[in-house]
C-alpha cells in the first residue's frame, strides 16, 4: 500500500508517493535525483548516506521514508549555493581530505552539524562526531585537519560579522 508524504528538502517542499519499505535514501536518490547521499553498506554501518533530518545527522538508509513524513531534510546539495563551496567543503578540498570522495558528503554534513552546535570542538569531539562515517581510502588524518581548519574559518567569519 503506497502512501503520500511531505518532505521539505533543502528548503523546498515535495509531495511524494512512497511504499512502506522505501527509505529516505531511496526517495532522495531515485525520486528527487539528489545523488549526493550515497548508498554504501545500506545497513547503517558506513555513514555514506548521511543527511540532516530535523536538525540532526542520521543514516538515511535506515530511515523509512514514511517515518520522515513532515520532516525537514538537508542534503549535501543544499549546503552551499550552486557553484559555490561551504567553508567545510572548501576545507576538505584544501586539506586533501577527499580521496575517492564517496564518504565525503556524509563527513561534510556531520562536520557542519558539529560546528553549528560546537564552534570550537576538541579533537576528541571531532573524532566522536565522525565515528559513524567510514573512509575506506583511510584518510582520517587529513579529515581531522580539514575539520579543525573549517572550525577556525567559521569562527573567524563570525568574528568579522
Amino acid at each position, binding site marked *: 500500500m503506497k502512501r503520500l508524504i511531505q518532505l521539505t528538502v533543502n528548503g523546498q517542499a515535495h509531495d511524494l508517493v512512497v*511504499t512502506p*519499505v*522505501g527509505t529516505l535514501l531511496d526517495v532522495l536518490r531515485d525520486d528527487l535525483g539528489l545523488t549526493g547521499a550515497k548508498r554504501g553498506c*545500506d545497513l547503517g554501518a558506513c555513514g555514506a548516506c548521511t543527511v540532516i*533530518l530535523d536538525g540532526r*545527522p542520521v543514516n538515511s538508509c535506515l*530511515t523509512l521514508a*514514511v517515518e520522515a513524513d513532515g520532516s525537514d531534510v538537508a542534503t549535501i546539495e543544499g549546503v552551499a549555493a550552486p557553484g559555490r563551496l561551504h567553508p567545510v567543503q572548501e576545507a576538505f578540498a584544501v586539506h586533501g581530505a577527499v580521496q575517492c570522495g564517496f564518504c565525503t558528503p556524509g563527513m561534510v554534513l*556531520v562536520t557542519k552539524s558539529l560546528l553549528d552546535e560546537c564552534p570550537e570542538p576538541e579533537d576528541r569531539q571531532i573524532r566522536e562526531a565522525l565515528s*559513524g562515517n567510514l573512509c575506506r581510502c583511510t584518510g582520517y588524518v587529513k579529515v581531522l585537519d580539514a575539520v579543525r581548519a573549517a572550525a577556525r574559518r567559521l569562527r573567524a567569519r563570525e568574528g568579522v560579522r
Partner: protein
Amino acid sequence: MAPNPSRKRQSRRGAAQSGMSLSMENGIHYHLPETVSEAVGLLARHGAAARALAGGTDLVPALKLGILGARHLVSLRRVPGLRDIALDGDRDVVIGALATLRAVATSPLVEHACAALAEAAGRTGSPLLRNRGTLGGNVCLDTRCWYFNQSEAWRASRDRCQKAGGARCHVNERENRCVALFSADTPAALMVAGARVELAGPSGMRWIGIEALYSGEGRAPLALAPGEIVTRIRIPKPLAGWRTAYVKHAVRESIDFPILGVAAGVELAPDGTIHAARVAVTGARSAPVRLPEVENAVGGRRLADVGDGDLARIATRALGPLFLSDAVPHKRLLAGLMTVDALARAAGEDSGRRRS
C-alpha cells in the same frame, strides 16, 4: 520466507525503481497509530505478524536482510509523551521509550541517576544511529547470531535455522536450541540501576523489573504478552554513595555491537568499603545476566582486598560455559577482566588501569 532467487538477483536499479531497497520484500503494511491503546490494539490484532517500529535502526536492517518475520510495522512515532526524560517528583528519573539514545546519553538527569546508563547509551552504535535509535528499541532489541543476521544469499547456502523458522540450530547442535546473543548495550546498565519497565498492552498497564522483561530464549528474547510494548523506563533515585560504570568491548570501538558489555554499581562507604554491589553482563547469553557470585564476593569488602585475579576468576566461573556463536573463544576470560575494570571504575579505583 523461502529465499527467492529472482528477487535476490534483482538489479539495484530495478529495486530502486520499484521504490524498494535491495532485497526488501513487498507486502509490508505500515500503521501509524496516534495513541498507546491504538498501537497495542494493532499489535495484538496482527500478533506475530506485527512489530513495533521505533527508530528503526535495527528493524530496517532486519527488513532488508529478509529476517524480520513480520508484515505489519506499527510505528510509535505519533504516540505522544513517550520522548520525555523527567524527574518524577524529586525521586526517580522516568524515561519515555522513544527518547533517543543521544537524549539519554546527554541527559544530566540520567547522568546523575545512573552514569553507567548515560555511558552505555553514548557508546551504542554511532552518533548517527544514536540520533534515531531509541532507548525502548535498545531494551527490546532482538537477539543476534552469526548464522541469522546475514543476507538472503548468505543464508541460502544452508538450512534455515530455528530463529528463521527452520528446524535446526547451527550453533547449539547438541541441544538443537537457539542460543542467539542478546547484545544491546543499555540493559546491563539498567539492571545495575534496578530499573523498572512500564508495559502497555490490550489489558492495560503494568510495571515489571527490567530482569523480568527477558525470557532467556534466543528465538524470542522478550517476555512480553501479545500486543505489549514498553512505554517508560524508571530509574530509582540512587542511594547516597551509589556509583556506577559501564565497560564495553567491541571489534571497532566506534560503531560495533558489544562483544561484551559489563555494567557495575557499588554502594561505597567513605573508607572505600563496598556495602553492596550489582554487576550485569550483556553479549554473553540470550538475555543480559546478573553475576550474583561477584556481587556477593565484593559485598562488605574493599575492592583492593579481594584482588583482581580472584575477582576475574569468580566472574568467569559465574558466567559459566558459553556458546561460541560469535567466534570469540576468549569471551569468558574477557568477562572476568571487564568485570574487574567495571567494578574498579565504579568504585573510583581505576587510576592506572585500562580504560575501555
